[in-house]
């Protein structure tokens, strides 16, 4: 780093902390910043600081939020009798983009990984139970990823919720849009068949 002036070296170092960014990319980004208008650089810097300062976890659903509770939790038009359980806040955003879901969410902040020793105690499960036990929830939709870890998490949550006597559902798994039957593995095909519907 000694070829750089100090301030530039620091910037390159900071970029390298970001995921997926190696020395070359960090250097390219740093040179790009130097060519930017000063006001754009200041806007970027304040956006970074603002996001860090203002974004917290919603204390109801654990979504990322700039208000307590978050905008989804405090929206009176949303159906509070349905809870959609997701692994991370970005899954919630993906669900929102579909514009077909009008219930509330619960973000677990992770998933179970038996092989990595990541157990139920690391997830927002006591908070989920407390929410459901407080009443008003009729259905919980388990929208964890269709990976081994996501499935394990869904099964575990379903087992926790079953004694409470509410409807627990799992999002359908099957052949992706644009997929090809011939190249679909047996497990996915079998699930797609299970989840078939009338036309």
């Amino acid at each position: 780093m000694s070829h750089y002036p100090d301030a530039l070296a620091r910037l390159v170092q900071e970029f390298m902390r970001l995921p997926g960014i190696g020395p070359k990319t960090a250097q390219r980004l740093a040179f790009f910043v130097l060519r930017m208008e000063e006001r754009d650089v200041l806007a970027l810097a304040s956006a970074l600081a603002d996001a860090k300062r203002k974004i917290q976890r919603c204390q109801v659903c654990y979504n990322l939020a700039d208000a307590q509770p978050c905008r989804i939790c405090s929206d009176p038009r949303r159906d509070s009798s349905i809870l959609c359980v997701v692994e991370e806040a970005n899954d919630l955003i993906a669900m929102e983009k579909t514009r077909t879901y009008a219930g509330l969410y619960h973000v677990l902040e992770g998933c179970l990984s038996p092989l990595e020793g990541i157990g139920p105690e690391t997830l927002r499960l006591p908070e989920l139970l407390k929410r459901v036990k407080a009443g008003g929830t009729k259905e919980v939709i388990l929208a964890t990823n269709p990976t081994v870890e996501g499935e394990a998490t869904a099964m575990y949550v379903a087992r926790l919720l079953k004694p409470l006597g509410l409807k627990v559902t799992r999002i359908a798994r099957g052949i992706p849009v644009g997929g090809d039957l011939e190249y679909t593995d047996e497990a996915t095909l079998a699930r797609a068949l299970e989840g078939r519907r009338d036309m």
Partner: protein
Amino acid sequence: MPSYKADGIILKARDFGESDRILTILDRSLGKLEAVAKGTRRTQSVLRGPCQPFSHNLFFLWQGRTLDGVSECEIVESFAPLRDDLLKLAAASYMVELVDDIARDQDPNPDIFDLTLEHFRRLEAAEPTPANVNHILRSFDLRLLGLAGFSPSLDACATCGQPVGLWAGVGAVAFSPVAGGVVCPACRAVSAGDGEEGQGDTPGPVVILLAAGTLATMRHLATATTEQARILRLTPRAAKEMERALRAHILYHLDRQLKSLDFLDSVLE
């Protein structure tokens, strides 16, 4: 690029980069190997289905400079039921973690590969109850320890070598993970730091008491075929004592707690 084939079980699949996974594969004759499966985390990937933990596949691999990669993959046995039930998933996770750890510095061992497959099949076919899972895991533990050369001494005192028949009566027998198996009363009396049930400085219990029947069951399971083991009845007491003894034995040998145990315990209760 040089390529090769592998007939293997996926022990682990960890995320790598944006959309890849690195697989830990146990091949029947090559032993343990690692390979990257590119694009597996994309829903359209043809490798996505086969490249899941526990799947037994025929792999077509390319040899890379630092890491080999999967070019094609054909499912032999998918073992999907091991991923679709919590108890089975917890048990299979325990099995692969143990194999992964015990096979770490071993030469390729086709017997360990076959043993794992046999027990996957048994687990797949079993009714998912805690009793069944414990039964399968104990027979797996004992046979795997045997194949890896870490068998607990069950026929003779682990310290002085006196055959069990010469010193064991009808009462309980002491099992010492530190000594590496059952210990006779004389050796138990002189061994330092002796205490029952979780005293002393070493992790886990120092001595576990086994009923005579439990010891007989363990000796049988250590050498039984998978089919012989399957039809053996296990009393709840024997199951509990074996679990405690073998867990302590494995903990002592690996010198670390298996990561999958907490999850297993949380679904077994």
